């Protein structure tokens, strides 16, 4: 009797294990999801701009929204533990590791004044999009934030993006600064592009 129970136990256990791995194998069945389902959630999550009372501001922001949606800002700037968390739309938090270089976390683009772009001037945001220069003077790595592409937009399109970013829902989410990997040669190398500011050096 106990022997039979033992074997039944083993059989059930191995079924569970095999079942678990089969589950892993077949999930995610992304090919069974129609492409539209990957496209739609963000369209629903993006803010509607109908509430903007100034019609010219609304038109600019609409253009910016179109650019932001088609250039996949959200692909990096909306993070989440289990898929993009659209409650924190464009609030950053996604980790990017560049080997031999360090880890950066995508920035909070919402107008939150403490953790987002709320107290960044238009010019400061434009300098990032046009030249990859952050407001503290550091240069962004274009493989992480592809500013070299955004640099090719017309100034009118860049300003439209800025107009749109101003109308996102503010989300308080503190983003850690770029961290180097820590090995001595690497941290110094990181300094060369991310951390160095020679403007005060004599």
């Amino acid at each position, binding site marked *: 009797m106990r022997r039979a129970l033992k074997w039944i136990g083993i059989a059930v256990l191995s079924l569970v294990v095999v079942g678990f791995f089969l589950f*892993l*194998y077949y*999930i*995610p069945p*992304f090919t*069974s*999801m129609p*492409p539209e389902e*990957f*496209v739609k*959630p963000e*369209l629903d999550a993006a803010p509607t701009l109908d509430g903007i009372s100034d019609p010219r501001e609304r*038109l*600019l922001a609409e*253009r910016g929204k179109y650019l932001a*949606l*088609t*250039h*996949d800002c959200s*692909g*990096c700037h909306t993070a989440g533990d289990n*898929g*993009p968390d659209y409650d924190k739309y464009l609030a950053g938090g*996604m*980790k*990017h*590791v*560049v*080997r*031999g*270089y360090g880890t950066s976390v995508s920035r909070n683009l919402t107008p939150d004044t403490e953790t987002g772009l709320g107290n960044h001037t238009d010019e400061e945001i434009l*300098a990032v999009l*046009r*030249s*990859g*220069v952050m407001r503290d003077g550091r240069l962004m*790595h*274009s*493989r992480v934030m*592809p500013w*070299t*592409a955004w640099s*090719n*937009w017309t*100034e*009118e399109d860049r*300003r*439209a993006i800025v107009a749109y970013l101003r109308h996102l829902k503010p989300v308080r989410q503190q983003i850690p600064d770029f961290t180097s990997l820590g090995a001595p*040669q690497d941290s*110094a*190398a*990181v300094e*060369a*592009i991310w951390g*160095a*500011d*020679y*403007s005060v*050096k*004599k």
Partner: protein
Amino acid sequence: MGRSFLFMLVIFVLAIFAISGLMSRALSAAGESQQGGSLEIGRDVYHVRCAPCHGHEGKGDGPYAMTLNPRPRDFTLGMYEYRSTESGSLPTDEDLKRAITKGLPGTAMPAWGKFLQGDTLEAVVAHLKTFSSRFGSEQPLPVPVGREVPSSPASIEAGRVVYEKLQCASCHGTDGRGTGATATDFQNASGLPIQMRDLTEPWTFRGGSSARDVYLRFRTGLDGTPMPSYVGAVSDREMWQLAVYIVSLGRKPAWEMNEQELIAFYRSQERLVSNDPAKWGKYLVEGMGCADCHTPLDGKGGNIESLRLAGGTRFTAGPYGEFVTPNLTSDTATGLGGWSDEEIRNALTKGVRRDGTRMLPFPMPWTALARLKTEEQNAIIAYLRTVPPIHNEIPRPKPLSFFPYLWGKFKMLVLKEDFPAEIFPGNAGTLKGGQQ
């Protein structure tokens, strides 16, 4: 349910091995600066702030150079466009400082004024001048700036006459926007394509948009471009009148327009998309950075320019296996030349390959491209058809075999490890020799 797993791809691991090459140079430079000396400071600053685009040797070939339009200046030629000196002459230090501190509008060159001042700025200028031997042997010859002609209906009209007399319209068009221009393809002294300036958009005037700034362009010419100095061809007064006329052509930028003007502006932009799709497609492709991934990496942080859009960058994406970016050139056998418009559109907007297999929603951002208006999708397709063919056959995607796939999934879904996506330098396609 499946969606949640897919979006676990949020962790993006980019491996650029050879950026370290770039780093080590900056480091050695930083080490030497301990001894002091302004040239060393200038070199340090240059390596950090300028070299990513202009290159360590000042050749305008830094790792970010390929993607930028227009390209960064090649300092080794000692030839500068925006000066206050005679045609063919060197720029003054003030000219260089102006470009550095104020930036060049309409390009990626930022205004460094907030970060580079005083001795540091002087040191950078001194370092820039070491790239060309011309600075050792020649002196800049500043131009005398004649008496300014104030703007008035009469001077604007006189300027319009000069515009006709000098046949400005053959390049800039009758309206200053290129309409009816007979010459459209231009190169600079480095053989790189350049665009003629749209004279109705003063906020893109590199050297500034005041009448005096514009006058200086006629007086000094833009060295290294087809834009000559008009000294001798017309009088100083006529150049001032022309400047006043050009300034009068300036239109309002979109961010200053009122509602009606904005509606009309975006409508005219839509017409542009359908009238010249390939041109608009170029704007979209350059502005989306397609070439960043669809051009192999050179191992120094940049792309291999001779293989632009020829694909061949190898990615690994965790348990999903290995992908190589496809060849987007118009080559019939290996590129998009043999694809129908619908096939390209399916790949762009649905992530469906020509053989019917599906792409991950990452790193190819087809989920975002799907939101493009149909006309803009057509524009991208039209532009890709014009990209010169490069024969570079791309291997098919390689899914992992059963057990590594399970193990990868286990690590990702159960152990919650970061999604390991990596990107590798070099061309994984069949074309050899492009690899450096």
